[in-house]
């Protein structure tokens, strides 16, 4: 039961790389926070700083109002689940889980009881005498979770724990992690580059880019109300459609098409129009025309990809439309589309700032 406060956290490496730039964050008790961002954005570094595996160059980190900058990793009372599980290969599952407890001077009988209880919760009690090499990927993942849970730490840290599992198992474990975290009520940070994982797990999401937190909020907030071009393009699958545009004489010029309904945008600067695929629909009087390239049938709905008319054919702009199953199209066909102007977003291309 703990809160974590980060204020002005910076990480500079000796070679001059500035991995984390001034992160401020307040994580309340029992929350599951997901750090999401492209690889190399500093999200893992930030997590490792919380764990104590990386030093903090600047700023202050507090667990329950106690400064932990100088506290050793073992004394921070945090548990981490690593990407490659990082189980101790020479120890049995039981000893893997008991190791952290016995080092903290817990009595043998108590360790035995705690390990068995945790193993039961994770359904690994049959494997306690096995070595990690004799387990499957999913089982190892459970043991890694068990090793973290058994310690009843103040914080759980997950560093891309599912990236080594196959797709089906990943979905299964994702649900399980969420359920366990709810049950145990332990404050957690989860790092991933997979935006679907991030959206489904998070209570709150921190989108990190180039060492900075671009935006933090609930998954739906970030999806429907992104503050920057980066967040808009990173969150959502399929990706948001982005079309280069200019604002001229009260209208938004997209290629050769003029779209009305936008006001007060700066003129003469490159803009980006962002529309989510589900906010576009076929309409006989639609202002945007595409020639269909590809149709992906997903069952419940289909994704239609096509090149937008009115752009130079050397640099075509692709558009993706989420349509119902009724719509049957063949490649090469031209269709007219309309979008909901009040749900569209406009960004400045240079700064990434959202204008509408």
């Amino acid at each position, binding site marked *: 039961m703990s809160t974590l406060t980060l204020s002005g956290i910076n990480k500079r490496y000796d070679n001059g790389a500035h991995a984390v730039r001034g992160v401020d964050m307040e994580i309340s008790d029992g929350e599951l926070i997901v750090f999401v961002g492209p690889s190399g954005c500093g999200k893992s570094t930030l997590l490792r700083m919380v764990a104590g595996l990386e030093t903090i160059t600047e700023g202050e980190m507090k667990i329950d109002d106690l400064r932990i900058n100088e506290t050793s990793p073992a004394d921070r009372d945090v548990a*981490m689940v690593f990407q490659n599980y990082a189980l101790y290969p*020479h120890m049995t599952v039981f000893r893997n889980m008991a190791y952290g407890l016995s*080092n903290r001077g817990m009595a043998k009988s108590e360790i035995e009881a705690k390990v068995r209880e945790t193993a039961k919760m994770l359904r690994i009690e049959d494997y306690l005498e096995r070595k990690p090499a004799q387990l499957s990927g999913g089982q190892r993942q459970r043991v890694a979770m068990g090793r973290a849970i058994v310690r009843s730490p103040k914080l759980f840290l997950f560093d891309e724990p599912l990236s080594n599992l196959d797709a089906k198992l990943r979905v299964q474990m994702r649900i399980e992690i969420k359920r366990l975290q709810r049950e145990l009520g332990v404050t957690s940070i989860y790092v991933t580059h997979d935006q679907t994982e991030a959206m489904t797990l998070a209570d709150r999401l921190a989108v990190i880019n180039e060492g900075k937190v671009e935006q933090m909020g609930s998954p739906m907030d970030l999806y429907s109300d992104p503050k920057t071009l980066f967040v808009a393009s990173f969150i959502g699958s399929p990706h948001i459609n982005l079309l280069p545009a200019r604002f001229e004489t009260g209208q938004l010029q997209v290629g050769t098409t003029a779209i009305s309904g936008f006001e007060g945008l700066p003129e003469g600067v490159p803009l980006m129009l962002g529309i989510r695929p589900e906010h576009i629909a076929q309409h006989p009087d639609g202002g945007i025309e595409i020639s269909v390239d590809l149709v992906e049938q997903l069952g419940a709905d289909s994704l239609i990809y096509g090149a937008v008319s009115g752009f130079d054919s050397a640099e075509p702009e692709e558009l993706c439309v989420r349509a119902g199953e009724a719509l049957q199209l063949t490649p090469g066909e031209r269709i007219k589309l309309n979008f909901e102007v009040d749900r569209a977003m406009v960004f400045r291309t240079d700064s990434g700032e959202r204008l509408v």
Partner: protein
Amino acid sequence: MKRVQFERSTVPYFFIAPQIAIIAVFFLWPAGQAIYQSFLLEDAFGISSQFVWFRNYEDTILNYAWLQSAGFTVIFSTLVTFFSLAIALLLAVKANEVLHGSSSYKTMLMWAYAVAPPVAGLMGNLMFNPFIGDLYAAMNAMGWDFNQKLDAFDAGFVVILISVWKQVSVNFIFFLSGLQGIPKGVMEAATLDCRSPTKRFWTITFPLLAPTTFFLMVINITYAFFETFGIIDTTTRGAPGGATNTLVYKVYTDGFLGADLGGSSAQSVILMLMVLALTVFQFRFIERKVHY
């Protein structure tokens, strides 16, 4: 259990024939010769010989000089193996903390390995020379009445020091690559689980290094038993009074300098049996504790 039976063919034997030939010519035949010789007693001029059954063995085992030599070999091998491994491990652990795969540095640390044992012995001989040896002077300056020519302990110290110095570098490289083979995540997980670095070393690092340690132990014992011949031959030559006479060196001095081929052969057969027993022991009892 079911076994897959392959059709028998002579082709595989052709593939291993060169290796078999090498083993036969350079190992089996000389070993057979040694066993045969060990039952013979030659006259002083090497003209005639007579079959004496186990007389040579009796003479060997009941001989004070041989027992002294065997005792020294055991102590010498134990100390050389222990110190070469311990020092190399300590250096490797310390280097691993600061070294991040800079291979040129690692290569430099390995240079001492390129020194042949006799050369190492000669260098040691110069350093412990009573007239110009810096180490000799340093030892005496520290108040240690050091003289390897007169004192058995001092002589043992010199050969052990040189043997260890020569071997530490190769052990270091193996330990270092062993350490770098331990997944970083495992060490980090241990940092979160255990506060004390010493305890982490003995519970995580050392067990994970066990395959390397076991391999090096076998190599180092062999080194101490046999390869240190060159070092002893260029420094003490078994002096004073046979105090630094290892079994291998005694085989050489008795056989080639003393011209007692029968006795020398008996000694080498006994040495062979000792090494065989030691190897069996290592693989049966120690390797079991190794986790690969």
